[in-house]
């Protein structure tokens, strides 16, 4: 630890200037007050110690920084004390090698997580050059390797010798002892555990094959390694040694292009066949097995996955054949082939139909769109054109372009029920070219606004919703401004009790207060997943309904998947038109991370002075970050916010939903997406 000769004022100004430039949040941005405070604090330290060291500057700078900015302050200090960024080379060993690409869609990983106080202290010690830092780091890694990894993620940016960095990496790699820790650690740094065998052994003792495989898959996606393969191999060897059979479901969900997986599969299927043969109804059991295998085959596209599964399927079929030959055979295929091709109908007939008939007919009949559009335009049948566009927007627009009939098609878009157009928009907007998309969006927006108004009126009885302010009489509370006391009401109250002045108490004095009447409502909509079209349509309608219903209240709306899209902040005045634009433009990336959205909601609630606060979430609750999410939700519940979660009944994460129920969150299941606006209206009415 060296003494340095820095000008206290200059250091303070420079530190605050740099901190300010890195701070994105307006209300947290440090002011001149902080520069003055830092100067004063450093001078007080100088008076006490007579000499200042680097660690004193670091300590003082961190002390005057509010908690939310301490992490940023550490980065600024790193820069100020001459630590430059350098290109990071991952510490890899030869145990793990890239083998086969991930099978599942990758999820967006959190880019930055803040340090906890212990880690922050160690980092400030490293910046100050304190030699005890490595010892502290070792303790931290023993206690919690994930926290240590998070810290190492920051340490690697420091301009310290790479030998020292390797020392930190070694400490970390020696302390990773479980597969779960490994999968968490690699989210921050690419450090491999020193003893992979220990990890494998621990995984075999703790997790089922599919659980271990999932964790290994997380690791492989980041490291591009072969952890899944190692897991499958280890499970095969161990289960063989112990004479244990791993269930078919576990094996089928953990595929790897290696012999051991095929052996595991073979052993599982043989076990299941043997069990089926011993049962009362072997054919029924085997058919169940056949169906199960077909489902597994549908899950994968890779040949190396399908081939072994097909072998198993053949084995099962062979057994079925042996048991009952009549049961086997494809009886339905000729009929199916007949119905697969849509019969053709004369376009003249469709061109004359009304919307409902045309829309229904186009579902069942194959038509030439160019020909049909030409005829519909000739007959000036807007309803038929609308039906075509609502059935296949891109195809209709392409046909219109070819026929130079784009204006006629655009004009006809708003005919017929708006739901169909919106559904088709959400389904096909990504396939349109940008200029055409812009053109069409204006028409779709008109429909969205019209539709949401009609939904609001029919469900809520009008466009002016919300709570009315009311006045209440309540007892005076000690410490309040005595001028608030309503003299007449208080005198009435005291006289009606027959009290003389000596016995008058605080609560006998009455205060007239205005109930703010305001409610704060936040809606978070999950836009992840593959339900594009219908889901987006009804969520847009619900968001618009809320906008009308709570125009005079504190309302916040956000959409989330891996990212959070804020449509309206609580104290923001927005144009309905702009919101409709945003709703029609949002593109989902995939992955469900709700924490950021919940934190945003929490911040919004803290800004609202409304007494009644409500949070509405529409989601299947399959959150990637469910641990953090549940913690934030629990905080929200504790602070008196009523939470409603609308869950699609056909697909949701049972465990998370159950936990939320235990927390006192109201869960509403919807069997059909069409119910969503009605359920939203019901919630609004209870508010």
């Amino acid at each position, binding site marked *: 630890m060296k003494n340095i000769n820095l000008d206290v004022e200059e250091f303070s100004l420079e530190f605050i200037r740099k901190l300010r430039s890195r701070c994105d949040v307006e209300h947290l941005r440090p002011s001149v007050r902080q520069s003055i405070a830092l100067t004063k604090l450093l001078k*007080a330290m100088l008076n006490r110690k007579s000499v200042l060291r680097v660690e004193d500057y670091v300590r003082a700078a961190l002390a005057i920084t509010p908690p939310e900015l301490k992490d940023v302050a550490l980065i600024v200090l790193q820069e100020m004390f001459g630590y430059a960024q350098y290109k990071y080379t991952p510490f890899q060993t030869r145990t793990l090698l890239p083998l086969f690409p991930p099978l599942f869609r990758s999820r967006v990983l959190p880019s930055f997580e803040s340090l906890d106080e212990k880690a922050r202290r160690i980092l400030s010690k490293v910046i100050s050059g304190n030699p005890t830092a490595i010892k502290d780091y070792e303790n931290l890694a023993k206690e*919690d390797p994930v926290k240590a990894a998070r810290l190492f993620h920051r340490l690697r940016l420091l301009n310290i010798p790479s030998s020292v960095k390797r020392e930190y990496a070694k400490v970390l790699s020696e302390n990773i002892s479980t597969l779960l820790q490994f999968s968490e650690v690699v989210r921050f740094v690419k450090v491999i555990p020193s003893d992979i065998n220990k990890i494998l052994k621990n995984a075999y003792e703790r997790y089922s094959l599919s659980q271990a495989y999932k964790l290994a898959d997380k690791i492989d996606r980041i490291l591009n390694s072969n952890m899944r393969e190692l897991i499958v191999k280890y499970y095969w060897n161990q289960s063989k040694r112990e004479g244990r059979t791993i269930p078919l479901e576990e094996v089928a969900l953990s595929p790897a292009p290696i012999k051991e997986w095929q052996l595991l599969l073979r052993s599982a299927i043989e076990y299941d066949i043997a069990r089926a043969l011993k049962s009362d109804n072997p054919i029924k059991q085997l058919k169940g097995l056949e169906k199960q295998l077909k489902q597994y085959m549908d899950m994968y596209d890779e040949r190396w996955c399908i081939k072994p599964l097909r072998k198993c399927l053949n084995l099962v079929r062979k057994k079925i054949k042996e048991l009952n030959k009549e049961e086997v055979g494809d009886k339905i295929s000729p009929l199916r082939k007949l119905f697969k091709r849509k019969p053709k109908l004369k376009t003249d007939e469709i061109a004359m139909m009304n919307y409902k008939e045309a829309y229904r007919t186009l579902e069942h009949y194959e038509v030439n769109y160019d020909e049909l559009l030409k005829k519909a335009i000739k007959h000036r049948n807007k309803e038929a054109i609308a039906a075509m566009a609502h059935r296949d927007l891109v195809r209709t627009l392409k046909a219109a372009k070819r026929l130079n009939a784009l204006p006629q098609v655009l004009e006809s878009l708003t005919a017929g029920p708006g739901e169909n157009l919106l559904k088709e928009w959400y389904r096909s907007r990504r396939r349109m070219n940008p200029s055409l998309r812009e053109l069409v969006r204006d028409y779709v927006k008109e429909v969205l606004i019209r539709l949401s108004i009609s939904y609001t009126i029919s469900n809520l009885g009008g466009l002016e919703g919300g709570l009315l302010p009311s006045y209440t009489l309540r007892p005076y509370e000690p410490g309040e401004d005595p001028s608030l006391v309503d003299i007449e009401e208080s005198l009435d109250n005291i006289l009606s009790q027959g009290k003389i002045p000596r016995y008058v108490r605080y609560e006998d004095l009455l205060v007239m207060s205005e109930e703010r009447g305001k409610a704060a409502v936040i809606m978070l909509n999950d836009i992840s997943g593959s339900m594009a079209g219908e889901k987006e349509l009804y969520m847009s309608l619900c968001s618009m309904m809320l906008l009308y219903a709570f125009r005079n209240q504190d309302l916040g709306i956000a959409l989330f998947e891996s990212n959070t899209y804020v449509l309206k902040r609580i104290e923001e005045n927005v144009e309905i038109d702009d919101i409709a634009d945003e709703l029609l433009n949002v593109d989902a990336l995939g992955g469900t991370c709700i924490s950021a959205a919940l934190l945003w909601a929490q911040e919004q609630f803290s800004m609202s002075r409304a007494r009644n606060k409500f949070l509405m979430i529409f989601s299947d609750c399959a959150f990637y970050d469910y641990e953090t999410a549940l913690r934030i939700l629990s905080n929200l519940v504790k602070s008196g916010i009523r939470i409603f979660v609308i869950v699609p009944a056909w697909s949701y994460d049972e465990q998370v939903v159950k936990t939320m129920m235990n927390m006192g969150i109201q869960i509403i299941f919807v069997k059909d997406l069409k119910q969503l606006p009605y359920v939203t209206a019901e919630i609004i009415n209870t508010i």
Partner: protein
Amino acid sequence: MESDIAKRILTAVKRASHEREQVQIVLKGQYLEAYELLKDAETAGLTPAIIGPPGVGKTLLCRYYAMMTGRPFFWVTLDEGTKPSHLIGSFNPAVVLEKGFTIEAFEPGPLTLAMVTGGVFVANELNRASEYVQNVFLEPLEERSYYIPHIGRIKADSSFFFIASMNPAELAGVHRMSEALRDRIQVWITLTYPDKDTELEIVRLHCREHYIPDDILEKIYAIVARTRSHSAIEKPASIRATVSIAKLAAEHIKREGSIDDKELSKIARHVLIGSIKTRPGIKREEVVNSIIEDVLKAKEAIG
């Protein structure tokens, strides 16, 4: 007028000042750093806030600071229900009706007392108070005075020192600190669970009258420390829990002559069940049992 108020209030706290208790603290590591920062902040005329999870010794440190600087100590734990009168004091309505808004009718609160007597005032869990209450502190911090309606302005003694203490944001309610107050707090001292050596020293200090072998203390620490890194636990066990387990273990040793893992796990379980908070939906007993089982490797000890 001002001197009258001061005299009256001084009489009211005379007894409290005489009965000042002796505080014992392990002043090393983060506590020494925090203590020095408190000293520097006061010298520099800055207002500090101490931030840390429950049970890390925030209040104790402030109490110790007050004791070492020879000043009376006042503290209030704030929450959503706290009113300005709980800090400033209020008029007794019965006396007001009889004598009017006189000094006799005024009952001073701890903030007023601290200001007049030049004491150390700790606003515990400041971020749980409503903005209305948070704003009460603005004038004492900025002008070192406070205006009490019907009485007048009281000036703070030169040695009055205000310290805020609060839990980290994720443990508190949803109240955000008012920007005005936030701007007036210039030093943010963070405390966390101490390192092993410091915590064991704290435990030894609190169990001075007891004998506990080092290996037992190590086991107790290992159990408590595990609660602080366990993903299923929202609020881990504090130093208080370590001290409680150690004291109970020491009593057992005094009675029986020794303690085995089975008994230690029973004691730890009794203490931890009440001192941790698990994440929603997770059973406390299960987590506690698994931690103790993991640390002591004593499966059979847990019923």
